């Protein structure tokens, strides 16, 4: 490459000639490590411009140079390869060392995030930034933060409503910030909006379940909790009717039913069992989940084992035969 000939080092107008000796040192170090190799073994081909960028980055990293020009180089590396985690780690060190305005950094990150929705690194970086940002912040400021974070999150979810990273971050955020009833109800409405958009969006159903559990914890008496459960059972019933072959809405219905049973057994026995049986019977012919959960219900109420067994056989042989092993297992458990 003839690196030894060059006496200046510039990248996009910025001068890096002062670190040229270290730059050359790192390059020759890699060359030495490559001397014994006889096979490229999946090395990736790079153009000269990219090699120069990485060379400068490597030099700044090894010098631990915390400076604005380092930030610019780090950003260029991240733009080229969003998954280059070393650059994210270095960036965090620089931003904190230079006491950069974290609000501005979050704005930069928002923009980057929207362009790279599938990336892993953005979220752990965001978590670190937020943990530093919220130090010594008041309650009101944290409340503002939730609103702000929700803007970017809902944009991301609009783009891809099942993005696991985005949902994982949202889940972390809800644990990190203290949400009041108003916040929780807003989130519940949001889940309703998403489920309305796509009834089979399981991520949205899981999110609703998460929010619901928080609402239930926040409710301070049994009557309130039972009222919430009843409302949610109606909600799920309505969604099941819209499209019965949807595991998410059935899971939801029976999860609520299970908690309700623990909360208020008398009420469960008196009202809910019949309602749930009716729901299953109604959809018996258009959803195998109706039969599956009918069996679960019968097991709970100590129903006739023969009937349950026959339903499992029906599932195994006709309605859901791909899960044959599971149905045989359920029969053996009776």
């Amino acid at each position, binding site marked *: 490459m003839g690196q030894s000939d060059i006496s200046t080092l510039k990248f996009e107008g910025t001068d890096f000639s002062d670190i040229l000796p270290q730059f050359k040192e790192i390059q020759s170090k890699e060359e030495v490590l490559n001397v014994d190799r006889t096979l490229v*073994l999946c090395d990736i081909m790079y153009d000269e411009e990219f090699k120069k960028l990485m060379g400068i980055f490597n030099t700044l990293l090894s010098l631990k140079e915390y400076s604005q020009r380092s930030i610019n180089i780090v950003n260029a590396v991240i733009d080229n*390869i*969003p998954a280059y*985690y070393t650059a994210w780690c270095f960036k965090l060190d620089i931003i904190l060392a230079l006491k950069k305005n974290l609000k501005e950094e979050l704005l930069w990150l928002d923009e980057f995030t929207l362009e790279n929705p599938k990336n892993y690194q953005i979220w*752990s970086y965001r978590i670190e930034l937020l943990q530093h940002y919220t130090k010594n912040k008041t309650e009101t400021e944290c409340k503002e933060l939730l609103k702000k974070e929700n803007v970017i999150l809902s944009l991301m979810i609009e783009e891809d409503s099942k993005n696991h990273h985005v949902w994982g971050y949202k889940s972390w955020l809800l644990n990190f910030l203290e949400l009041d009833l108003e916040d929780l109800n807003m989130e519940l409405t949001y889940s309703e909006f998403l489920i309305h958009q796509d009834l089979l*969006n399981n991520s949205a159903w899981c999110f609703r379940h998460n929010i619901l559990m928080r609402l239930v914890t926040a409710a301070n008496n049994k009557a309130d909790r039972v009222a919430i459960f009843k409302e949610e059972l109606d909600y799920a019933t309505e969604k099941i009717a819209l499209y019965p072959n949807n595991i998410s809405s059935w899971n939801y219905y029976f999860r609520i039913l299970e908690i309700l049973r623990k909360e208020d057994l008398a009420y469960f026995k008196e009202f809910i069992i019949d309602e749930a049986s009716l729901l299953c019977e109604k959809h018996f012919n258009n959803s195998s989940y109706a039969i599956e959960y009918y069996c679960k219900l019968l097991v709970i109420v100590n129903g006739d084992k023969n*009937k349950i067994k026959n339903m499992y056989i029906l599932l195994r*042989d006709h309605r859901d*035969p791909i899960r044959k092993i599971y149905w045989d*297992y359920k029969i053996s458990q009776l």
Partner: protein
Amino acid sequence: MSIVQSLNSDSSMNLSSSDYEDVFEDISADTTEKYHQIMNSSKTLLDKAEVDKIINEIKIDKNIILNKSKHMDYLFYFLLSNKKLPTQFNQLEASNPWILYWLINSYKVMKELEINEKTSPMPKDEIDAVLKRETILKLSKFQQDNGKGGFAGGFNQMPHLATNYSSILALCLTGNLKKVDSSKITKWFDSLVVSLNDHSCKLKTSQPCGETDSRSIYCYLVAAKLLNIDIPLILLERLWDHVSDLQSDFEGGLNGALKTDESHGGYTYCTLSSIVILLELLADKKPETFKEKKLHDVINIDCFLQWLSLRQDYINGGLNGRSNKLVDGCYAFWIGACGVILKIYGYINPIDMPRLKEYILFYCQDNDKELPGLRDKPGKNSDFYHTNYILMGLSLCEYNEQFSIGEGGSLDVNYREHESDINKDVHPVNPLYGVPIYVLQSKK
């Protein structure tokens, strides 16, 4: 309970399961009319319909087998041709060890081809010798602390639990593990532990920022096991606290970060494997508490089996990673391995493995154009990642009934030989470590 009563006299129940296809047609015809509106507005259903259509158009030859020579060509091209990967691969610059693990493992999982100059660039012994020499030369460039610390994703990068994991596996596959100087890996491991002294203890994939989910724990444990690195009891107990409290109450899968998240095949695999390995280590270090503990003491097996069994698609036999998501060949490993692990440890594998094998052979390879490599699903291109996990998934299908656990625990997963083995195109893999069993046995 009228329906239930009528069930008792339902004579059609005696039909064999192979007759189920007509039943489905009836039901779906009815469904289409009644639920027309939802079917045209739900993105989930529209996406699924599109995939079903593409898959439906593929002509099936029931006798199709793994196109080993094409897939070997694919691997040899990238491993041995001495050509660099094209520039667009630079997105993988932080994942260099993964590329080596995926490719070398795929090669090692498939059984040897007949020696044939056309299909193999050199004799097998020579290939193995070249890979052994070149793999350690390449990966040691990425090892920190003057070749004694953790492995990074590439030259001059920071060490990371995921690339350290794939490096260790690649070195294990090529018989290089004994050559690794891991004297400073422990120090690096320690630096990744956050708040060891309280119950919010986490393990970061890298410092100062990185993920703290069960993937980081799994990668850490596998590396420690393979390198015989001792993990202090306090950390084992903290990690145990974390992974043993990740089962979703809502769905039954094992989550990666919080039990309130949506269950996902990849994280479920990492969490289950971590539970198994941790239990083994803790039974040794603190027998009074852990010796008698079983998986069902921390996992609700019933709910877990339900969630796992729901992953399989009745039309094509493939697996998805989450409820109401599309099938993807890579879950043949992530989910298939969960089933196999449960079976090895005395429970059952709820996945219909013969049907899963059909998905792999019919749809994960392009039988029409005979393209090299394996893919997520028809309509997608093959890649290194999918080739590896689909081949391992195929191995789990082939040896599902034969796996057993030896005296040595998780590293010693074994299999009973069977006369049908000779017709299999892949070797049995260890479902917890993601490499062929014979590779781990030769390590002993």
